[in-house]
Structure formats: structure tokens, C-alpha cells
């Protein structure tokens, strides 16, 4: 009886290990799927001080398109304002 109980404990431990290994494989697949399916904006890590900003384009008031790359190497001030 006691031996039977111990054997079932061992089986349980092995099943637990197999579940952990299976979960690990599933988490690897999830990481790959998440990275492949996310829109690009969510994949870019948040910017920190000292990091290079990603390039973007905006329209000026005169309807000309300017990009951040045009100002590479020059000091640039970005001003955000709201108008009613």
C-alpha cells in the first residue's frame, strides 16, 4: 500500500516536470508568435535618455513634408500645442 503511494508520488513528480517542460515550449512559441504578430509600433522598446529616436515624417503648416532624419546632427526642438 505504502509502496503504491510512493510510486504514484513519483509519477506525479514526473508529470509535473513534463508539464513545466511543455509550458516552456509553449512560452517560447508564444514569444515568437507575439513578436511576429504585433504591429511595429508596439515592438519598438520605449525610448530612454541617450537613445536615438526612430525616424518619422510630419506635414508642416505650408503642407510640406519634413522628416526627423533631415535634422540629423542638428539640435531640434519639438513643440506640441493644441488649438481650439
Amino acid at each position: 500500500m505504502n509502496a503504491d503511494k510512493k510510486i504514484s508520488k513519483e509519477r506525479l513528480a514526473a508529470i509535473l516536470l513534463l508539464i513545466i517542460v511543455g509550458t516552456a515550449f509553449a512560452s517560447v512559441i508564444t514569444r515568437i508568435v507575439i513578436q511576429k504578430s504585433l504591429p511595429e509600433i508596439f515592438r519598438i522598446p520605449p525610448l530612454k535618455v541617450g537613445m536615438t529616436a526612430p525616424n518619422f515624417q510630419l506635414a508642416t503648416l505650408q503642407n510640406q513634408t519634413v522628416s526627423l532624419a533631415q535634422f540629423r546632427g542638428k539640435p531640434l526642438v519639438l513643440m506640441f500645442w493644441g488649438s481650439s
Partner: protein
Amino acid sequence: MEAAGELSLPGRIEQESERLPWLELLGAVIISPRKAFRQLADHPQWLLPSIILFLWLLLFASGFLAQIITVFSQMPKETKEALPRFERAFVVVMSIVQIGTGTLALAVVFLLMTATLYLLCRLFRFKSRLFPLISGLAFAEFVPRLTAQSVKEIAALLSDNPMFMFGWSLHLYLNAWRRFSSIDFPIYLWPLLNRLDPFHLWSFALVVILVQVMAGVSLKKGVLVTAIYWCICTAAVMGFFYGLEIIGEIMGSAK
């Protein structure tokens, strides 16, 4: 009614054990290793440790693949567009190469490790048979590593940090404590630092029990042999990394 021959060999009758099913043997390595190693002394197993080794490498390689995909997907668009073919080729080739060469290299390294442990047992005049020792050591080394790799992969998903899988050990704790990478350890110290984690300690304890069971020695002698074995293996890996660093420096200065 028992035969007279059997009665005259009680020790032998006690030692012989029934062959456990693979699931119970695997569980026994985790919760009652002494029983598992006694079982392996009577019936050495090869297929199960080979599958565990393969699963460990497969998990390591797929985790590496996931990390590369993450790094590539976080690259600026211009950089990424410059190397789409490289990305595909690199990811596929690296993963296949890792599983292929990793299995072969680990098999060779593992045989060298077993030879070291066997020679140490002989040096201390312990009686142990080679094949059960190989089989037992495979379980003692690979089961904790597979578990460690699995926990790392799950933690990498939960932590939202793709680099997490490379830093589990004391190296990570120290760096985390000092806000990451303020301590710049030389590369040859990494194997030592990576061996100071709970899973390696578990593996160490399993090897102690293995030596005790296979050679029939006391706990003190088992710890002594395992400690020497551990030092030799760690020194060998550190020497390998030190050699790599020297080659890197020579190649860097040649440029």
C-alpha cells in the same frame, strides 16, 4: 519454498530490483534519487537521458530563436530592411547548427565528465561500474538542466525581458542589485558564476547521491569526490572561455 542457493545470497536478492517504468524512474530522480540510482545500477538506461538531453537542447535553441526574432523585430525599420535575407538565414542556420553541434559536443563533453568522475572513484579506490555510472550521471546532470531551462523560458515570457534567459544565476542577481551591467565580469568567470544557482546545486546533490549509491561510500566521501569533480569540470570550462578570450584578443589586435 525458497531454494538453498537463494538463501545463501541474501544481499544479492535484496539488491536486485524490478525495472521501473520510465515515468516513475524520471519522478524518482526528482523525489527519491537514491531509489532511482539503485534502479539504474541494476538496469542502466540510455534512451530516457538521451531524450532529456535532446529536449534541453531543443528548448535552448528555440529560446535562442525567439530571442533573435525579438531583437530583429525591435530593430529600426531601415536596418531591418537592409538584412531580411540575413535574418532568415541566420535564424534558421543558427538554430539547426545549435541543435546539431550542441548534441554532439555535449555528448563528447558528457563522456569526458563521466570519465573524470569514474577515474576519481578509481583513484579513491571506490568500486563503481562504468556503464551504470554514465547512465546515472546523465540523469543527475540533464534533469536539473532541463528544469532550469524550462523555468528560464517561462520566466522570459512573464518578465517581458528577452535577455532574461541569459541571466539566471548569481551574475544576474549581482547585476540586478547594482542596476544591471555595472559589474563587468570577464567572460571566463561566467561559467563559475553560472554554476552558483539552485539548479546546479540540485545537480551537485544528485551527483553526491549517485557516487554514494554506485560506489557504496559514505556521504562525506561522496561529497569529497563530487566537489573535486565539480572543481575540475568548472576549471575546464573556465579554461575554455579564457582561451576564447585570448584568441579574441589576438584576432582583435591583428586587425
